[in-house]
């Protein structure tokens, strides 16, 4: 179920990128795409009724079923990178606004 | 070495014979053409008188190239005439009378005359030379296609052997009959070569002001007249050897020669004068098509009368 939601967000992100001509809206749809992607990564690691993969000292851990820890680790970095790029994109948007005075790409008149 | 000298002397003899023969026949023809134009025409030896009168006069020269060109022209034509076989057996250099030598040595004469004409500084002379060369471009190609057919059929390009083949009457009778279309094309090209009426622009008397001969006088003009006569001799005897089966002896040669030359003169006295591009267009329309079809029929389909 989670995967379908993730794929839906991916599609939404792509749709946004395809149609929007406003810089901020492009950044937003890029974020939606990345969040959808991260959700999808998480959903890959899901194990039926597995618990969070945290080893505690006092329980013997061999009997428990853990969810696959790797995708969640990957997602951490993916999110951080997503944040980095979005920050850079917003800084660029600021530059664009100063230079062209508008966010609509069509009105910028770049050749 | 001695027989080489003898051969050369014989060649000079042939050239001299050619000159005398042609000049006298030209004189006779001037009377015939005169008769056609309802007048008597000059004495038969008038041509000789003109030439020797000119040779004795003192004239003008425009520099060394002007003279050198005339010498080269006359020399080249005499050289060509030396090769010409008179009868199928009587010739100066047996075995070496190749058809292409004649076509290309005449070109040397033409080049000599052209060189001296444009060297004379008169633009009208250069225009005349340009006309002569253009007409040559026109009449030369159909003629050579027909000769190609003859050479391809007989397998030899030496005039004397061709003559013998035609006289033998075995498999080939005269090519003017064996290759009818070829004969017609040859006649038309011959009229072009000799500069007879329809294609006469480059040496026409009326166009003298813009002909190549405009700057000549005295001995230069005389020498060019000699050159013209010998060229006519070469071209007509080429026609005789290629198309009328050469000649067993001199008498037949002279009769055929006279017949061809007079026929041409009579034919040409009927026509007007074509402009140069009309000449080129004419020659690259009918004669070329006739020549190519004749060649195709004769070589590939083997229809030879």
């Amino acid at each position, binding site marked *: 179920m989670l995967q379908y939601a993730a794929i839906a967000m991916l599609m939404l992100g792509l749709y946004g*990128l395809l149609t929007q*001509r406003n810089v901020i809206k492009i950044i937003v749809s890029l974020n939606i795409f990345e969040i959808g992607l991260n959700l999808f990564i998480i959903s890959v690691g899901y194990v039926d009724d597995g618990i969070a993969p945290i080893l505690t000292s006092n329980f013997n851990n061999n009997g428990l079923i853990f969810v696959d820890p790797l995708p969640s680790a990957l997602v951490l970095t993916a999110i951080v990178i997503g944040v980095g790029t979005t920050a850079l994109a917003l800084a660029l948007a600021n530059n664009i606004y100063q230079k062209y005075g508008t966010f609509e790409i069509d009105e910028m008149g770049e050749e | 070495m001695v027989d080489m000298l003898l051969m050369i002397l014989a060649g000079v003899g042939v050239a001299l014979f050619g000159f005398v023969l042609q000049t006298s026949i030209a004189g006779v023809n001037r009377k015939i053409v005169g008769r056609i134009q309802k007048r008597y025409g000059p004495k038969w030896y008038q041509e000789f008188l003109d030439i020797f009168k000119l040779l004795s006069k003192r004239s003008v020269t425009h520099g060394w190239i002007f003279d050198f060109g005339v010498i080269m022209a006359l020399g080249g034509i005499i050289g060509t005439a*030396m090769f010409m076989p008179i009868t199928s057996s009587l010739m100066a250099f047996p075995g070496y009378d190749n058809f292409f030598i004649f076509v290309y040595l005449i070109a040397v004469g033409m080049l000599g005359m052209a060189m001296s004409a444009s060297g004379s500084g008169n633009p009208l002379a250069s225009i005349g030379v340009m006309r002569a060369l253009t007409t040559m471009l026109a009449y030369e190609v159909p003629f050579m296609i027909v000769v190609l057919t003859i050479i391809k059929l007989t397998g030899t390009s030496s005039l004397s052997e061709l003559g013998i083949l035609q006289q033998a009457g075995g498999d080939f009778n005269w090519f003017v009959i064996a290759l009818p279309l070829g004969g017609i094309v040859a006649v038309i090209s011959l009229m072009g070569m000799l500069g007879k009426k329809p294609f006469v622009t480059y040496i026409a008397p009326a166009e003298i002001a813009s002909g190549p001969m405009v700057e000549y006088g005295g001995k230069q003009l005389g020498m060019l007249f000699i050159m013209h006569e010998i060229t006519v001799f070469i071209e007509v005897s080429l026609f005789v050897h290629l198309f009328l089966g050469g000649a067993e002896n001199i008498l037949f040669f002279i009769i055929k020669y006279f017949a061809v030359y007079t026929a041409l003169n009579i034919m040409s006295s009927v026509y007007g004068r074509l402009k140069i591009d009309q000449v080129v267009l004419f020659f690259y329309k009918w004669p070329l098509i006739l020549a190519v079809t004749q*060649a195709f029929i004769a070589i590939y389909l083997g229809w030879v009368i």
Partner: protein
Amino acid sequence: MTVELLIILTLVLGLVSYFMGRFNKVYGAVVTIIASMFVFISVGYMANDILDGSTFNYNAVKYLPVFATFTVSYLGIFFAILVTFVFAMVSFFNPFFVEKYKYPAVYNMLYIFSLAGVLGVFFTDNLMVLFFFFEFVVWSGLFIIPLGKSKKAAVSYYAFSTAGSFALLYAIFIMRDVAGTYNLYAGLASVSGTTQGTYVMILLSISAFSKLGAFPLHTWLPAAHGNAPHPFSPVLSGALVKLGAFVAILALVKLAPVGDLQSVFGSYTDATFLYASQYAVAILGAMTIVFGTLMAIRQDDAKKLLAYSSVSNGGYILVALSIGGSVGLAGGLYHIIAHALASAAAFLAIGAVSRVTGTSKMSELGGMIHKMPITYMVYLIAIISMAGIPPMGGFISKWLIFQAVIDNGLILIAVAVFFGSIGSFLYVFRPLAALFLGQELPQHKDKAKIPPFFMLLPMIILSLLIVYTGVFPNYILGFINDVMAELGVDALVIGKYTIQGPNGVLHPTLVASVFGVGVLIAFIIFIVLKKSRKVGLMDTYTAGNFIYTEELMHYSLDFYAPIERLYEKYINITEDFYKKLENKVVDFGRMVKYFFFTNKPEVTVFWIVVIIGFLLWGDL
């Protein structure tokens, strides 16, 4: 002196000439003379090594990578001697022209580099090395042409030559695939006759056509030769065009012809037994002759005119080689010699004239004979040979080609060949009349003077050689027979002085001596009679009106007006074709640029979605 050592030495000499050139222009040019003379002499030594049978081991010394092997074959020597001779003769002109160029040192270096490249092409028996040097010649020639007048000419030269060399490369790879080795002879032998053989033949002919400047691929030649620097155009048309002839020989002679017509037309072709491929190349050669002649007749620039004459003579070579047989091949090889010498001499003469007057356009020149008589005589002898008139070499090769054409009964090709030979008489005469003879124009009267001795020397040597090849051809024909024996074609029947064609015997010495006797007689007649009075050029029969200006009395513009009018509309068919082709590529480029490169990200996203969709189309 091994071939490899010779090539490396030439390259080193090239660099020496570059540095010498930086130091002083003229010394650099003198180095080019020394280099090309040195190369010519050493090739000469190699030649008489080969001729008297001693097999000198030419691969003893190994400098270049191991697979670069060289052998000295008769064919290689034949071409090498001719080309290095033309290079040597033309190099005498370099010192006098080198000041005018923007990069004189580079000119000297590239001049010698192209010489080295040519040596490499003719002497190698390894296909890849052949391509290496072939491309190297193209490359070094490329940077010399813009030193002349136009850059566009250099670009079109590069375009066509590279098309040719890439076709050659693809053919080499096919041969490598079939034969397994890069050996030239093994490659050709293994491929001839098979289906790959047809592809190889087509590709090699494209390469030969582009280098020879034959009909479909000739548009670069007039521009390149016409606009190249004056001393380089004789090298271009005399020597570098012969590379195309070399490849044509590989394509047409060494490979078995393709497409047996005998079985198709049956009895009709008893008159001729040519194969379809020979017919095709012959027809294209014929079209080259006609096209070259027609275009040459109407040119105003003497160098462009000579360039078109090279095109038409290239057509002659192609027709001769494609007909093959002992007479055809001998005619082709002899024509290569005659054309190389004649066009080199003609270009040198025009170069000498334009050095003094600054232009080679006939409408601006006239009466150069009065100040430069020797150059005039050189040009006269060259054009007599080019027009194929008896006492000169051109007549022998044209006679042989006519014999071959007639013997095979090729009517349409005969029409073109005859038209070409008479037409060549017209267009070679045009510069003679318009440039050398006629009125002496005042603006050139003071500047024009006899070219220095070192410029006359090569011209005179070339003219003597042209006369020699015309009067005593049998020694050279003997050498050609050796080349043909090596190519596997039976030799031409030649006596001590005579040449035996399929339907006639030619005795060139006799023809020349008879012509000499004729001229002697005419001279005697001329001398005996009264001496005529010398009169100036302006004192001519002008039907009464007074003339003062020389320009009006000089007929040079639109010399053959009647003919030119006939085909004026069809002149640049091929140029327009190639321009359209070029515009197609440019439009495609612009379309892609407009469609893909905008500053909006959705173009990329759109294409990503489309491609993923395309992949998943069937599966969902």
